[in-house]
Structures are given as structure tokens and as C-alpha cells.
């Protein structure tokens, strides 16, 4: 019998479950542009389509300062406070 020491952070991953899906889209949808080149092209197109299909829903745009770092706390807080849904365009 021998022993080694655990090289990891020894933390048990937190299990998360998806939020319950609402029956309808109402209120405000946030679009988060992570600031990759031409990401705004896709986000803008998405915004137009949402406005066409869901005229009663407000669509608000947000942008990360850089794709190379997680969204700052301020951006995340504003999205949580101001929106009911969020769509994030991930990298590449």
C-alpha cells in the first residue's frame, strides 16, 4: 500500500440544473456580445429576427469589454436586473 497526495483543488463540483423553461417568452431578452470580431453581425441579425417574431418583447444588447476574460460583475449584474432571458454568443 502506498500513498500519493492529491494534486487537485479537492473540490467537489457543484451540480447545477437547468432553469425551468417558461411556456412563453415575455419581458426582456438580453443579447450578450462577447466582443469577438464580427460577433456583432450575428447579434444584430438575431436582434432583428427577435423584434420581428416577438414584437412585444424588449431586446437589449450588452457587450463584454474583451472576449479574453469572463464578463465583468457589472455586466452580469445589469443583465440579471434588467432581463428575463439571455442569449450569449460564445467564441468562434
Amino acid at each position, binding site marked *: *500500500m*502506498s*500513498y*500519493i*497526495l*492529491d*494534486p*487537485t*483543488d*479537492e*473540490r467537489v463540483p457543484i451540480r447545477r440544473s437547468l432553469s425551468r423553461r417558461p411556456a412563453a417568452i415575455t419581458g426582456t431578452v438580453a443579447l450578450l456580445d462577447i466582443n469577438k*470580431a*464580427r460577433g*456583432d453581425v450575428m447579434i444584430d441579425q438575431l436582434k432583428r429576427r427577435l423584434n420581428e417574431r416577438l414584437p412585444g418583447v424588449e431586446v437589449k444588447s450588452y457587450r463584454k*469589454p*474583451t*472576449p*479574453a*476574460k*469572463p464578463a465583468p460583475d457589472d455586466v452580469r449584474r445589469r443583465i440579471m436586473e434588467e432581463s428575463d432571458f439571455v442569449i450569449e454568443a460564445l*467564441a*468562434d
Partner: protein
Amino acid sequence: MVDSAANLPAFLLNDTHGNPLAFPNGRPALLCFVKEDCPTCDLSMPLIEQAYQAFGGAVDVWIIGQERAGNEILVKRHQLSAPMLDDSALRVSFNYGIEIVPTVILADGNGIEQRRFIGFGRQDWQELYATLARIAGVSAPTTDWSAYSESRPGCGSKSVEPGIAERLIAEAEGSPLRARRIEIADQDDVFEFMFDQGLTDGLPVIPPTPERVIRMLRGTRRDAQEMVGTCAPNYAPVTIEKIAINAVMAGCKPEYFPVVIAAAEVICTPEFNIHGVTATTYGATPIIVVNGPIRQRIGMNMGINVFGQGNRPNATIGRAVKLLVRNVGGGRPGEIERAAFGSTSKYTCCFAEFEEKSPWEPLHVERGFAPGDSVVTCFGLEGGPCQIADQTSRTARAVVGSIGLGVESSWHPKTHNFGDILLVISPEHVDTIWHDRWTKEDIRRRIQEVTARPLRELLPTEDYGGAGALPDQANQRQRTEEELNRKIPKFQSTKNIHIVVAGGPAGKWSAMFGGWASGIYGSVPTSRKIEEVP
């Protein structure tokens, strides 16, 4: 002879018949630590046995043997009737701080040390016999003291042998280790086990046994539980102990450990942004440059094959940092680490600047440290490096012009107003450049000069695409003629061109580690002073 009045640690050991004997137990005790292959222990053994015969009625005369098989040999060899206690686990020897055998300790009934001596001393034994006779109220046995030499040194205790001492420290109360112990069954191959658990970078690692981690921790004076920061992407706490475990796995020696700690401190800073460096699809990785006296002291390579294989500190320091990001930070390929290609530099990338070959201030002095400081600087750049050949230039202007054309390809030749680059100039190119007495600032200015292009040449076209001039990424709006004719150099500033000297004495090539996102948008080159451990 050492006289003292210290409380001795209590213990419970079995004799050779399996009977447990406890100390202290109200009776005075003579504790004799021995091992079988020690000639001085053999010399002392008849006197110990004689003490047992003469004083055993009033004093516990116990022999504490350090090897189970050796204990039995000693009992037979000397026809011992005195109890032989089994300390083959060496915990009592360790707790008593035994460094030499024989060590003979006289204690009173409460476990208070009365006297102690090590090795063999005729006078020590004579005085001890007189003391024991007084305690027991009997006469000392007749002994032919002329048969004994005046003194003889003892042997090293098994409890301080390499490997054993570290195990005992790891197992002792007050051990600096807190990491979870993972049990490896006898039928398991520890190397395969570590692969199966996802703890390696694809190459075998050294199993981080408690003994090895204790040895690694001797490379620093910092507390094992000190936290140096948190490591993304999991933002997990990074302690000195966790760094030591990963440094063992990487193959580091304890004298490299302060360099690994300093590099770990850097990658835990928000400025270095290991999250982005790890997660980018571009394939950036920590490029680690070491400056100062520690380079020579630990034998780092700064010359021939400087970025290649074959040098232990270069190879293992960089690997330790990457293993730390993987195991503590949780940055694993296919999970948060998303590089499309990656590079072999993601296994390890660490080298030293060849300061002795450089006519300029070394990197760490340029960055505000003293020449005598040892410093680690990490760059979040593309691995590689990419080499730039120029075997024909005979002037500084020409060779730096060549280098400028070479570095323009970083990221994409048409991407200008770019961030950081690490330029490594070879000794032969240094000779050419310094022949004209060019400074590092001259080099930087020349690179900006030869790479400056009108914006119109940088814009994407149907033939060439290209990223254009950052940070104006889309480049789609209409521009004036003046804007289109404005020349834009490769780098935002000469400060983004980081220069070090390294490489073998022959070879008219220099090298560059290309850029990734820099500044507040990406990774900021960051330095930390390395702890001096004499």
C-alpha cells in the same frame, strides 16, 4: 554528556514477545536507542545488558531497536534478557530527535530526562552506572573498564536516513501536509493510476508521495498552507503545498521550487489572466523567462537548444506551472482549454536569459528589479517560437530590419497596432547589432519603422482577407484618403516589444514568441521576484 530536564514524549512499544510496554510508567527508565548494523551499538550492548541485570529491579532498562529483523539478531548475538522494544516504524526515534545511535537516555518515573549521551563514552557509562546504583540502592557491577576504549562515535539513526526522515515528518503530528491522501493499492501501478485519474499532461509524472512533497517544501521558507492566490478557470486556492505537489509531479528538484512559486504567483494575478490564456482557441500558454543569479545556481539552460529538450530546470519548472493550471485551476484540454492547435509549449515553456552574453540591461532590470534579484516573468503568448533567419546582414540596421519583417507575421502580417511580442535575439545577431552599438530602444524603433504600413494595405481584401489594424476590427466603414494613407506600425508601442538574449553561440537566427490578446484585453506580461533560499 548532556544533562537536561525536558519532558520526554510518551510512547507504547511492543517487546519481541509482543508485550506492550508504556513510558513513562512511574519507574525510572534507561532508554537505549540502537540498530543492528552499528558497531558502537554492539560495543555498548554488554553494558546495557549488565545494567539490566544489576539495576533492573528498580529501573526499566529498555533497548529500543530500529529494525525488526535486526532487533532479533541483536538479541541472539548478545544473549539479551533486557527487553528489546520494536521501533521499526521509527516514530519514537523521530519524536525523540534521535540522530545518532546509540543514544542513551535516563529518565525519572515521570518521564523527565535526567541525562543523555550519544555514541560510546567510557566515562559516560561509568557515571551512568554510579547514578543507577544510587537510584537502585545497590552496588554497581564489577566491570573491566580497561577493555573499553575511551570513546567511539556512533552511527546515523535510521530515522534520519534520506527518504525515511521525510516520511516521518509527513506522518508526524504537526506535519505541514494537509492535502488529501490517495491510497494506491499494491496491485495498482501508480503511474497508470495517475493517467487514469486525469492528473497528467500525457507524459508520466513522478508520484507525489508525502516524502517527496516534504523534500520539495524544503526548497522554500514559506508556510505550506500559505495561499499565493486563486487559479482560473476554477478560481481554486493555490497553496504552497499544492504547488509543491505539482512540482514533484513535474520532476522539479527542491532548489527549483522558489522559481515555480514565483511563476505560480504570476499566473494567479488578474493581470496575467490565466483564464484567457488557457481558454483561448488561439493556443496561448505561459512563456516563462528567468533572470538573475538563480539561473546559474540551479543550472538553467540559456544557450544551445535553449527552447529544446535536455535541461531539467527548464523542462520541469514550466511543466510544474502547467500541471498546476490543469490540476488546481481545472484548465484541461477539451474542457476550458479550447486551443484549436495548441503547441508543444503547452507541456512546458521556460528558459533563462543569457545575461552574460547581452550588452544590454536584462529583462528584469528593464522591468524595475535590481541586477542581483532573481526574477520570473511570464508572458501569455503563442508557443513556438517562430525563428527568423538572417545570415547575410552585416549591420544592425539590416539585421533588425530583417527581424522586423519576421515579427510582422505575428498573429497575421496585416494585423497592426498589435500587442505584445517576446523577441529572443541570438548571440550572433547580438554581435552584429552591438557592433554598431545599437540599444534595445534602437531595435524597437527600427522594428516599428520597417513594419509601418498604410492602413489601406492592412484592410481585408478579397485576395488576402486579414484582421486589419486593431482594435478597429470590422474595418468596414468608409475612410478618408488621409486615414487610408496613415502608416500604422506593427505594435501599439515600442513597450510591447520585449527583448531578451538567449541561444547557442553559433546561428544567425533570432526567434519570436508571437502575440495573443494583450493589455487589459488579454494578458499583461507580469514579473515576480524569486525568494532567495540560501
